[in-house]
């Protein structure tokens, strides 16, 4: 079950099919670089490209074969120019703790830190948007210091406030909209993470750099 397709002898990326339209490519640490490279190709038979933790899902149009250009892009070394994609830099103002961040005291205690030290560490770190998922505009931010990493809540909250800044596993993220959520809430931002009426609806895009600034 689950065939590994190895296109040609010099292929170095493994891929597997999610369906005959969805090609999941193991891109590892180079996921964002491959993402930038493949998006720039704008292949007509590619309907969408979705970044994940360490893979890309390339969604082909129904009935389309793997385009030769895509096959080449996945079998040849990345061009140097796309190795370090240039994302935008953002500073996100956050109100930490209190009603805005109900899980902050317990999280700080579990980490063996004072609340102030926990906040300082969270805000001192430069994060990279690894991918968006879960909700439109929800960024998975990579770079969370190991001391702050923690498993998700045992039972998800029925309702999380929009703009909630959260910790889930090795990621920190921001809930653009209200709704149920299983991450620990440490603060809240007023930044509009997602607005379907904007030209670019998501504030943060894969490859962007983010810093949190205590309000």
């Amino acid at each position, binding site marked *: 079950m689950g065939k590994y397709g190895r296109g040609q002898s010099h292929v170095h990326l493994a891929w597997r099919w999610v369906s005959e339209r969805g090609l999941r490519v193991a891109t590892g640490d180079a996921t964002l670089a491959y993402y930038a490279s493949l998006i720039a190709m704008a292949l007509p038979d590619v309907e969408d490209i979705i970044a*994940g933790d360490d893979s890309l899902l390339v969604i082909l149009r129904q009935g389309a074969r793997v385009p030769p250009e895509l096959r080449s892009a996945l079998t040849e070394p990345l061009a140097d120019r796309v190795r370090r994609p240039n994302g935008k830099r953002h500073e996100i103002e956050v109100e930490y703790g209190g009603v805005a961040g109900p899980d902050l005291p317990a999280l700080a205690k579990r980490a063996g830190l004072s609340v102030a030290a926990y906040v300082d560490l969270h805000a001192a770190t430069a994060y990279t948007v690894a991918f968006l998922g879960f909700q439109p505009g929800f960024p998975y931010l990579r770079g969370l210091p190991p001391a702050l990493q923690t498993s998700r809540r045992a039972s998800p909250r029925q309702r999380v406030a929009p703009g909630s800044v959260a910790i889930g596993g090795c990621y920190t993220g921001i809930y653009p909209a209200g709704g149920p959520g299983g991450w620990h809430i440490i603060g809240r931002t007023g930044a509009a993470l997602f607005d379907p009426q904007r030209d670019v609806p998501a504030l943060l895009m894969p490859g962007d750099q983010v810093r949190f600034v205590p309000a």
Partner: protein
Amino acid sequence: MIEVLRAGLCDLVMDLGRPGRGTLGVPAGGAADPPALAAANRLVGNDAAAAGLEITLAGPRLLFPLGGVAALTGARFAASRSSGAPVAWNETLVLAVGEVLTLEGVETGCRCWLAVRGGLAVPQVMGSRSTFLPSAFGGQGGRSLRTGDVLHCGAAASEVRLLRAFPPLRGEGGCLRVVAGPQASQFDDAGLTAFFGSPYRVEAASDRRGLRLAGAPASHHRAELTSQGVLAGAVQVPPDAQPIILGWDGPVTGGYPVIAGVIAADVPRLAQLKPGDAIRFVTIEVEAARAQAAVPWTIEELG
């Protein structure tokens, strides 16, 4: 123009969706059976991509104060017209001034599509008029229709012709064709045997985000929780070993192992599954799946 005299269970404005925005965390969405909506549109002289209504399980009561031209495709619902004329499926319906079209409960299947001449003129959001309920945008204010809503229609592009549509023959019964998934190797033999060899029942907690199934446990080795891209039709298996088929409005990334993916030609068939239905999975190869191109509906003049 349409006045909603009584809303149905979940009447959603839908067109062919907004593919290509997964990077933003937005799934393609759109009509659950795009060829069926496209056929309804052609019956009323619309472009295939015009917006219509997707109606689920129990339908609305709709007043056409100015009359109109409409068509229904998909599952048959108990239906009537105030004029007493029959409500034919897959045919152009000419509605008189002040006529009321009433849809009650579904007879077999789950969803139907109602196209109206000119298309529903709700604003486009991110390139589409489709409703996306999870984030409440698109369609009629990001929600299902409510009693009292008034829907406006666009300008009609062509003259009225009386047409009949014939759906393509699709696989019968509850057998869905799947391609083995990227994490099938994380499942144990018992799990694979269960998934590919036994029936599953569609659970009540199913919607356009996903179809929850119940049946023999598709057991797997506890997989690491990493999020990977997914698409409609992907079959995820959470730790409880009960599969979930991701739907049209499902998340674009998922953290559970994907045991299989429903082939593109069979994803529209998911539209007609409702709680209590039994389904089975049968695997085919990627090349064979790709050859199952979408068979278009045929349309001919009503003679």
